[in-house]
Structures are given as C-alpha cells and as structure tokens.
C-alpha cells in the first residue's frame, strides 16, 4: 500500500474515481478456447486487466524426480508480459511473480483432483497482457476457467477478488489508483459453491469491522464472477 492517505479518491457522492460505488465490481468478461494449441484456455478481461491462461496436460511428468506416485503435480507460472505495465517490464521471473505462481499453485492444488492422475503433470500458464491492479486475482480466475475448459476434474472453480480500503472507505475490487494510494488490499480465492477459501493474502491496515466488510464484498463479488465463468464455459469455444 502506498499509504498516501491524503489523496482524495471518493467524491462527495460516495463515488470512486472510475464512477463506481463502493460495492461495485469492474466489468468482467470471459472467453474460453482463446489459445487453440492448448488443452484448455481462457481470456479474462476485468476492468483494463487482460489475462490469458493455458492448460497443458495431464502429461508425463519429467524429470522423473518431480513425479508423485499417488497424484499429479501442478506446474503453475504467472508472468507479466513486457508491455503489460506502464513502464516496460523486463522479461523473466522476479520474486513477485514467483510468489504469485506459488500461491496460485497452492490454491489450485486444493481443488484439482490430483489423485486421478498419478505420476503426471498439469501445466498452467498465466500471462498478464495488460495490468490494472488485481492481476493475481484475474490470473487465478482465468486459470480456473482454463482448467475447467481442459476438462480437468475439480471440486469447484476458484474465483478470486480483492477488496480493500481507500480514504477510510471499504471498497470492492480495487482499481489501479485505489491499489496505489489505498490503505488496504485483501485478495481472496473463494470456492463459490461452499464459500470456502483456498487463497488469502492481505496487506495494509483494517479494523476488525472493516475487515469483515471487505470479506463480505469479496464473497458477494465471487458469486457474480462465478456466474460469468459458468456462462463462458457453457457458451463453448469462441
């Protein structure tokens, strides 16, 4: 969090810089089958965020030392394209993308029925083509749709949303300015059918009441996004 608490981001009518009310999501649209050579794929545009995810596998896990006798391993990579940010992003892994890849894998391993594919590997590739705050959430959501599109069995799809706080107001689905200047950020990965969580991070400063409000915003938003995910999968390939 930038901690620039004096930047005014909520106007006198309670509206945010992009005209949303505190509880409103940015526009979300999802399309499947956008990477024809992959076994499953999805494109998610979420506000100005633009992410694609591809799934390859299940396939033979090699080198053999990574194989697990009783289950599949997930090989998850989150990456930002060099032109995805305002200042060019130097290609290659950095500490941030490694951490996000790891927590994304941790989230997805909690829902994919790994024991159905012993000794195999499922590759999940998340590429952020345009970044506008909340890319880890958009990436995780895209990966869930791509897994479903690939026909990989899961207990549920993960929906990921981040709410937070700006000018002491708790708001749903932070945009870029709110992420930069806000006081808190709470990204969650939610299983919409049960309300359980598989991914949780937070940074900033929230009172217990504010935390609960942000939590509830995420839960409500997850149901909205889940419906868009289901519709995209039912709509078939683009």
């Amino acid at each position, binding site marked *: 969090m930038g901690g620039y608490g004096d930047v005014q981001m909520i106007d006198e009518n309670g509206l945010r810089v992009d005209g949303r009310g505190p509880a409103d999501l940015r526009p979300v649209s999802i399309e499947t089958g956008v990477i024809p050579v992959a076994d499953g794929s999805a494109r998610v545009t979420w506000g100005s965020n*633009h992410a*694609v995810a591809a799934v390859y596998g299940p396939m033979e896990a090699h080198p053999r030392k990574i194989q697990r006798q009783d289950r599949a391993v997930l090989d998850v990579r989150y990456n930002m394209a*060099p*032109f995805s940010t*305002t200042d*060019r992003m130097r290609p290659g892994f950095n500490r941030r993308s490694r951490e996000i890849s790891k927590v994304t894998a941790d989230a997805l391993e909690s829902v994919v029925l790994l024991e159905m594919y012993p000794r195999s590997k499922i590759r999940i590739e998340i590429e952020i*083509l345009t970044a506008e705050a909340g890319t880890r959430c958009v990436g995780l959501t895209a990966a869930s749709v791509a897994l479903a599109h690939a026909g990989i069995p899961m207990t549920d799809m993960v929906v990921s949303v981040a709410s937070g706080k700006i000018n002491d107001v708790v708001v749903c689905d932070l945009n870029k300015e709110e992420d930069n200047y806000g006081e808190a950020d709470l990204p969650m990965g939610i299983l919409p059918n049960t309300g359980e969580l598989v991914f949780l991070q937070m940074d900033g400063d929230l009172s217990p009441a504010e935390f609960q409000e942000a939590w509830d915003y995420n839960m409500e938003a997850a149901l909205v996004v889940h419906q868009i995910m289901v519709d995209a999968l039912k709509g078939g390939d683009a």
Partner: protein
Amino acid sequence: MAIPLVPQLLRAHLAELAENDQRHDGRARWDSRETELELGVLQNAEGSAKVRMGDTIVYAGVKFQIMTPYPDRPNQGGLMCSAEIRPVAGRNWEPGPPSPESIELGRVVDRGIRESGCIDVDDLCIIPGEKAWQVILDLFAISDDGNLFDAFALAGIAALKTAMLPEVKFEMSDADRPLPVSKTPTMCSYHKVGGRFVYDADGKEELGGDERIHITLGDDGHVHSLQKGLKGIFTADEFAEIMEHAQGRCEELRQMILRAEG
C-alpha cells in the same frame, strides 16, 4: 524449446501428399492460412497489434525508454526488438532464459525492420549525446501452430506504425506524437516440406519438414533481410521460385497493414 520427436509417419505422410502437390490441411502450395490483423489491442503499450494466422496467435507491443545515445552516434535513438515465446504458447516451449529459437526469431524480425530504414533514428534524438528515445518492440506469442516468423514480423511493423511517442508522460510536450515510420517492410517464410518449399507452414509441417527460408521485402520490393534456418540444402532455382512468390505476397501483406491503419 524441447525438440519433439519427429514422427516418421508424419514425414512420410507429408512427402506422399507433396508428390501429389497437396498439403495436409488442403491448402495449395502457395496458399496462406486465414490471416487477421488487429491494431491497438494492448492498453498499456504505446503501440500494439495482434496477428492470427490459423491457430498461430501473437501480440506485438511497443514501449519507449529514454537512453543515452551511443558515443559513435550521438544524434541517434535506438530500436530494440525482442521475441519471447513463453511456455503458454505450446507444449514444447519451456520456461527459462530465451532459447536459441526465440533469439533467432527476434533477430530476424529486427533486421528486416531495421535495415528497411523505416524508423528515422535521427528523429529519435532529444538532446544530442545525452538523451534519445529507445523504441522497444516486444513480440509475444500465445499460441504457436507454426510460422511465428511471419506472424511476428506482421504484428511488429503494424505495432510500430500505430505507436505514439509518450511525450506527455515524459514531460516533454503537451501532446504525444506518432512514431515516424516511413516504410512497411513485410516478411514471407517458406518451409521445405516433403521435398518442396511451401508458404506459411503450420505446426505439423514445421515438425515434419526440413529447412526454412525467411525473406523480408521493402515497399519498393528491395530485399532487407534473409535467413536460412535448420538443416537442409536448396538450389538457386528453388530460391528464385520462392522469391518470385514473396514479391507478390509481401505486397499483399503490406496492403493488409495499410487497410487496417485506415
């Protein structure tokens, strides 16, 4: 890139088709796949394009940085072109430092654009010897079904032609101005499949084929870059034949870019 096993059955199948002057997807020898070009598709890039050729899909994005001019060229800015084929693009592409294949891709596209002289590097100088614009063209594949070269070259020059110098962001003036790009070099690639060259090979033809030749031509039909890749021998007659096709097809691709620009 992991070198996949080359199925001998595929090679034999492609050779048999070639004897009857056929291709596995029904195209004639010089036919391209359906090619689509979209401009301005990446919101955080200063210029961008997306190209789809069959199941091959690539993006090109232009970003700008301020550089110190090279001591021997104090009045010039620079162009940097790099291709990245991340594992998202196909099951044989692996993570890690750039592979020789992706470096070759970036460099061949770079040469075609650079040598055509389409970018006036003198115009990119801001303060001689101190400050100049560096144009960075990033080529990014999300789906590789063969012939990334032509897809990258098409997306690359189209992205440059739509790029705006971000003078406002860098506090140099009140308005951004278009990057001056005076020419439209285009590339055509040919793969030897079943003993004869074909245009715009797809993934299967690349897998079961032999050497490839890439030709970049300028607006006036002048040659700006050539590259022969992979193991194989070709004759002067074969080269003359593909060069003749390239003269026509490069012009068609150029017209496609000009139409998209509107």
